[in-house]
């Protein structure tokens, strides 16, 4: 292996690793606030680029109907004044999609906002009513949604793979496209923005507080429901943007979310589903590990990545304390 190949592998690992990292951070955040292991995050990611492709071709993607249907259920659950939020959101989203059919640049915004709306609605409709349930019930719901959303992806978009046009064309050097640079920049900005949000804003601290003590949060007027919606919103935003930026590099298809989400999950587990920096570093490790194994033992690439889980879980089990539900 010479220096060029090493460079390729490192760049490839970094590019994938930062996306796994963002997904891992999103999963840690959602778990801390709501105790939900967000398995369907990969599907939320997948909805973004495929909806974009549909919009750019002048078609309305089925994801919009899914979002509107969930939005109606959400409004029904909220009742009274609380129903206005989801209804206005659904109206705004529909208007945005209509405009995006004619004004192409709006399609990018529409695709991301759709995923955010879908993510928040998913929490409100499927997870919030289960707020007193055990982590296991929440996990079963999450796995069910993952399967359902992947199936819906197949129904909405068919089995083909799509490669949307990159936002930036061309390559900086051989092996590193401008789109890849965009992915790295986006990851860097996201991490900085999240750090700033949790470090300096009282809203960010309120979200951390809701994760630390449910009773304490209620007693200080931080609504757990709102905290959950914000956590899902942030996670969906990260997933949607990641999907849009990544799709031109790796192709978009209904099945793309599964592997991405699972690798984000591996990274999140490396961080014990608790530490943001360790989860992110774990994700980079997963990325590098994956790119090097695909070079040396490509047939076993995925298997070796998931093998990383074994020592991570073993380590977690050694230092695990009894967890109260």
């Amino acid at each position, binding site marked *: 292996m010479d220096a060029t190949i090493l460079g390729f592998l490192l760049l490839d690992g970094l590019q994938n690793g930062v996306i796994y990292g963002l997904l891992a951070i999103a999963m840690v955040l959602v778990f801390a606030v709501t105790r939900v292991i967000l398995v369907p995050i990969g599907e939320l990611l997948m909805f973004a680029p495929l909806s974009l492709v549909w919009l750019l071709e002048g078609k309305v993607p089925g994801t919009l109907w899914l979002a509107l249907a969930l939005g109606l259920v959400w409004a029904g659950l909220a009742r009274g004044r609380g129903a206005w939020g989801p209804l206005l959101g659904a109206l705004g989203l529909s208007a945005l999609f209509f405009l995006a059919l004619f004004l192409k640049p709006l399609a990018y915004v529409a695709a991301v906002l759709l995923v955010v709306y879908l993510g928040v609605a998913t929490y409100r409709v499927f997870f919030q009513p289960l707020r007193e349930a055990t982590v296991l019930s929440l996990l079963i719901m999450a796995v069910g949604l993952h399967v359902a959303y992947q199936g819906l992806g197949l129904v909405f978009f068919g089995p083909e793979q799509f490669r949307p046009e990159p936002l930036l064309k061309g390559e900086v050097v051989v092996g590193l496209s401008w789109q890849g640079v965009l992915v790295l920049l986006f990851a860097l900005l996201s991490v900085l923005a999240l750090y700033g949000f949790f470090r300096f804003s*009282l809203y960010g*601290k*309120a979200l*951390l*507080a809701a994760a*630390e*003590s449910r*009773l*304490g949060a*209620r*007693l*200080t*007027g*931080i*609504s757990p429901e709102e905290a959950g919606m914000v956590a899902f919103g942030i996670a969906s935003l990260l997933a949607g943007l990641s999907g849009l930026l990544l799709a031109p590099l790796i192709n978009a298809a209904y099945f793309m979310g599964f592997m991405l989400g699972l690798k984000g999950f591996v990274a999140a587990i490396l961080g014990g589903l608790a530490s943001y920096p360790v989860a992110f570093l774990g994700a980079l490790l997963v990325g590098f590990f994956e790119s090097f194994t695909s070079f040396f033992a490509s047939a076993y690439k995925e298997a070796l990545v998931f093998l990383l889980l074994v020592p991570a879980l073993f380590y977690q089990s050694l230092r695990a304390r009894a967890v109260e539900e």
Partner: protein
Amino acid sequence: MLRVEGLSVRYGPLEAVRGVSFHLREGEALAVIGPNGAGKTSLLRGLLGLARTEGRVALDGEVLVRRSPEDLLRRGLVLVPEGRALFPGLSVEDNLRLGGFLRFRKGEDLRPDLARVYGLFPRLKERRGQLAGTLSGGEQQMLAIGRALMARPRLLLLDEPSLGLAPLMVREIYRILAALKGEGVTLLVVEQNAKVALELADRGLVLEAGEVALEGSAKELWQNPKVVEAYLGLKREVGEG
């Protein structure tokens, strides 16, 4: 200000509180004393809507049917719970600022309140940047009270504020509570340590097996032989250990 009539709290088949009635006037301090398992904490939980209840709770003449901590917080009713429910991974100052979260959302400035809490608890000011989880028990209790004050309570509910604290710290906490009472904050203190609670309170309520066993002014309860024997006599073992 607060009127409670026939409040019962049930956990499944178990009735922890049975038909308790009492009232609180503006600026008054009420002590609820009684042995472990008498239903003191359940009474507070029921009051705040954290448990299933029957009976009527009226605040300022308005009956509160579906109660929640968030709703009562907006009406100026703030609980300092047993176990404190702090945010251990956040700094002392962040814990305090989050106590005023609802007011912050309305665009109010929290700095004067922060200065006031630091004035009451200089110890918290010294440790403002420290994580709440690393504080001593007494400091955590100060922080829990300080956090509640950030919401500008009209009625402060305290659940066992002396539990697990050294005698000196108990005195310090109750000195602050007396100062708050002097400022016009209405207090409801649930306490096993009957001595310190009755020193602070205007009136007292003795809870036994979920029912009101005795009720009267703090002075009367001080002089009641039953109370003296059952609760004040035990003061060395209870709460001050």
